[in-house]
């Protein structure tokens, strides 16, 4: 009985993972398929990647995504680290709620409200508004990772630094920051992937002229799912995967979300 339940669980898990990953595998496979149609396998080719790198619209979109991603991750890392530090230092209930709520709110609401916000302020929609929007939703994620890292730190180390003559800022700069650095870097990478991948919030805050990779893919798909879309999706997937692997290496608790706050 016991044994059968274990096998059942395994089969269920296998189906679950297949459901998750099979579509991704199909996209990757078709990106190398020597056919305009996503139907039968014809033969291996790198043509779609060549088309991709010759497509000016796509390159502009990629550049925009990169610029926004770098800005968003840089700024949200600084602000998120500060927020994480504050959550750790002043253990009130209010701070975590303030920082974490934006993560739980449906993205479409965040998108719409940011759009209204920008319009109210008469802010021109474009690269800057998208970057600001991304910063806003990345802060919470960075803050969680940084706080988890701080929770694992010996409290007396900061006191020892002060005892050795460091001002609060020096204690943070020379002791706290180096010790939470893996968490900060993991947070930065996470922010970057979140920004690169984001569609919904970007859609609302980009305005007419500005295009990012996910927006570009969407507009191409409206006509047909071309192998070129498969190719760019594959590259995006690869980049995301790489960053996630690096981030999880630096902050193992990320993968064990249950235990991340000891």
């Amino acid at each position, binding site marked *: 009985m016991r044994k059968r339940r274990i096998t059942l669980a395994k089969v269920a898990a296998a189906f679950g993972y297949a459901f998750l990953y099979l579509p991704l595998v199909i996209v990757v496979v078709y990106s190398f398929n020597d056919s305009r149609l996503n139907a039968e396998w014809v033969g291996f080719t790198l043509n779609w990647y060549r088309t991709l790198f010759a497509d000016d619209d796509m390159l502009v979109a990629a550049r925009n995504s990169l610029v926004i991603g770098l800005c968003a991750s840089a700024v949200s890392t600084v602000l998120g680290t500060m927020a994480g530090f504050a959550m750790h230092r002043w253990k009130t209930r209010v701070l975590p709620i303030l920082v974490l709520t934006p993560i739980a709110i449906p993205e479409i609401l965040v998108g719409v409200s940011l759009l209204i916000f920008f319009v109210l302020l008469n802010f021109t929609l474009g690269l800057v508004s998208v970057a600001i929007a991304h910063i806003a939703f990345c802060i919470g994620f960075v803050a969680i990772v940084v706080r988890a890292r701080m929770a694992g730190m010996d409290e007396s180390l900061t006191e020892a630094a002060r005892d050795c*003559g460091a001002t609060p800022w020096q204690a943070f700069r020379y002791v706290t920051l180096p010790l939470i650095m893996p968490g900060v870097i993991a947070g930065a990478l996470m922010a970057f992937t979140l920004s690169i991948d984001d569609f919904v919030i970007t859609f609302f805050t980009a305005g007419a002229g500005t295009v990012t990779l996910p927006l570009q893919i969407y507009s191409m798909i409206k006509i047909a799912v071309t192998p070129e879309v498969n190719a760019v999706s594959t590259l995006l997937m690869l980049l995301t995967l790489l960053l996630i692997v690096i981030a999880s290496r630096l902050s193992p608790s990320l993968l064990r979300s249950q235990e991340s706050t000891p």
Partner: protein
Amino acid sequence: MPLLELRQVTRRFGDFTAVDHVDLAIDAGEFFTLLGPSGCGKTTLLRMIAGFEQPDEGQVLLDGVDLADSPPEARPVRTVFQSYALFPHMSVEGNVAFPLQMAKTPAREIPKRVAEALEDVRLTGFGRRYPHELSGGQRQRVAIARALVTHPTMLLLDEPLAALDAKLREEMQIELINLQKQAGITFVYVTHDQTEALALSHRIAVMNRGNVEQVDEPSKVYRFPKSRFVADFIGQCNLFSGTVAARDGGIVSIAVDALGTVRVATPSTIAPGTRASIALRPEQIRIGASQGDTASDNRFRGTVSDLLYMGDVTVYRVRTDGGAEVEALLANSQTGRAKFFEPGDAVEMDWPAAAGHFIED
């Protein structure tokens, strides 16, 4: 003027008073120990001296200057934390150099100062290692080197040896005494271990529930405890309490329940009828099969009920004919004998009036 002075220092956590109107004066060059059971407020008191906690009432004065507005980094006081609190991302050298860097010591002077500090704690050659590559005792030494490298006026040590095993602890105790003498720095040392306090200190403050019960030299604290708590906490002690029956030329007779009349020498002018106690150390009692016919201030017969063999000495618990429990101690120094009595043996105990210590309740 004392180097450090605490005046009516009080610290509360909610309704709980962790440190309760403490007055202390510590002189320059002293090895001063705060001794008391766990939870009596030793760490809290130390943290107020270091500046990590603010007193709710009272003042902390260093060289006569109130420290209320000085943050920890501005106080010429260093702490050796119980957890060592070495910076894990810095090497031993990095750790020891850190206070020098914070004090803006010229960069070319730093390596020399670090080397000297490491030499003082006998860790020359360990500079490149990281804290996780060191044993507990070595980490302890790094923590001390880091604390001493800037030559502070005062070192605060919070149970620094508690995590070490007995053998290493004894070694470190001797090293601490030598370091303190050599550096001439005032030590304020926290421990719950009375033997450690007796062995290390010039003076001991015995704490109980946030209060200082007695401040004295180790031998005085041991020999003349001011309260029942101090007598009981420092070493083994028989505590007899009863009613004062008579006072006659420096000798007070107390009627102790189940034991009988016990005579104790004291200058106290206590009135008969008052409750009082006598503290009597087990090693002050003569114990034998029979003490002969010589006159004695205090003599009681009893039966050995238990014994505790400790190697160098044996503690005998004797039940007197009246039903009182008395602990007496004999050194096992006589060759060829492990112990003198067995449970059930009839014995006679005897001590002069000057052996006990009178405590007013």
